[in-house]
């Protein structure tokens, strides 16, 4: 099981039946493959619908029906189409149970940076600022480090996507909650020791008294 699959599998456990969720581009879109039997998520596509279904086979590609990454999808029975103002009313208004996004950096205060590297890469925030600012829970799903460098920092150095909004961080090494006292390691991947996880993390990790294995 590669890192991405570990992360997606673990994030999939965060949800209960009926949760309304927006999944960021990339790794987060793998999450629905791993939700348990009986849990049906209401997946939002911020470009304008609730009820994302599986990707279509080539014969059923419909370019009027793409997700926020521009990739053709389908909708499940009971979907709903709407415009961008309604879509972000859902997001900003706190009607999503959770959003799952990747990050360039996240820090011990729950700050998140994932939309630009000044002078280098400026793709824009798209819907990320609204999603992080508006969803009831913000789950960061990412590999623990980037080319060996920590992404979980004491303080983000890149321009923020939103301040103090991250609830939980899921990586291939473990699961960390953002608390008023900083980051709390609540689960770990038994392939790593707590010391190894801390070594890959710039922020100080407090180890939960109920620490358990991710799997």
């Amino acid at each position, binding site marked *: 099981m590669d890192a991405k699959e570990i992360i997606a599998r673990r994030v999939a456990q965060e949800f209960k039946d009926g949760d309304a969720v927006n999944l960021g581009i990339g790794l987060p879109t793998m999450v629905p493959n791993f939700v348990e039997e009986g849990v049906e998520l209401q997946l939002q596509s911020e470009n304008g619908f609730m009820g994302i279904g599986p990707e279509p086979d080539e014969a059923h590609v419909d370019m009027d029906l793409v997700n926020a990454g521009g990739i053709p999808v389908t909708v499940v*029975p009971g979907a709903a189409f709407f415009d961008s103002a309604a879509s972000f*009313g859902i997001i900003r208004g*706190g*009607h*999503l149970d959770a959003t799952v996004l990747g990050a360039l950096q996240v820090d011990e205060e729950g700050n998140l940076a994932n939309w630009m590297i000044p002078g280098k890469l400026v793709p824009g925030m798209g819907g990320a600022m609204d999603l992080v600012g508006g969803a009831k829970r913000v789950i960061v799903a990412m590999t623990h480090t980037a080319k060996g460098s920590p992404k979980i920092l004491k303080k983000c150095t890149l321009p923020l996507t939103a301040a103090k909004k991250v609830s939980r961080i899921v990586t291939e090494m473990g699961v960390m909650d953002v608390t008023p006292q900083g980051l709390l390691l609540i689960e770990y991947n038994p392939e790593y020791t707590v010391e190894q996880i801390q070594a890959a993390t710039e922020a100080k990790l407090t180890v939960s008294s109920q620490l358990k294995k991710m799997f």
Partner: protein
Amino acid sequence: MDKQISIEEAVAQVKDGMTVMIGGFLACGSPHRIIDALVQKGVKDLTIIANDTGFIDKGIGKLVVNGQVKKVVATHIGTNKETGRLMNEGKMEVVLVPQGTLAEQIRAAGAGLGGVLTPIGIGTPVAEGKDQLVIDGKTYLLEKPVKADIALIAGTKVDVKGNVFYREATQNFNPLMATAADLVIVEAGEVVEAGGIDPHLVMTPGLFVDYIVKA
């Protein structure tokens, strides 16, 4: 995730003293069965937010006539003489709001916005006691978001996921109220399976609806 409940379960959600939004425009598009059950139950001291107070024998007016309402926030009360009488006798508080402002205030609450900046009401009694902002040389009133404990709405056709289709002029405040209350109950003219409503005709996505009652 079955959202269907009985009328008894529905009215049990409405407690004395609550702030309740009720959809409809002069009783068109109002949840009549729920209103009748509330009259029967006798829940009291309600604050009602609605376009109008209907008629003495139809719609929201029945709650007013039955003495269950402490305060009304509405745009028009002229079709129900009892509202005016109770107001003039000081037995019920009435706050009158321009119709477009009330619509935006409810929408703002549902969409996570901090308020509404409207030119409507400047130079009239509506502006009294409210902050005004000059933006690019024009003056606007700051009207605050309006939310409720419960929204009681009515839909022509509702699927089991809570997606709502409103026929003709029955839409009015219903889709807005569905976004702006802690708990949303829709009275359904007809309940259909998921997929029973064309996703283009869904005017309230199911994620906003907590419970469905058959009309």
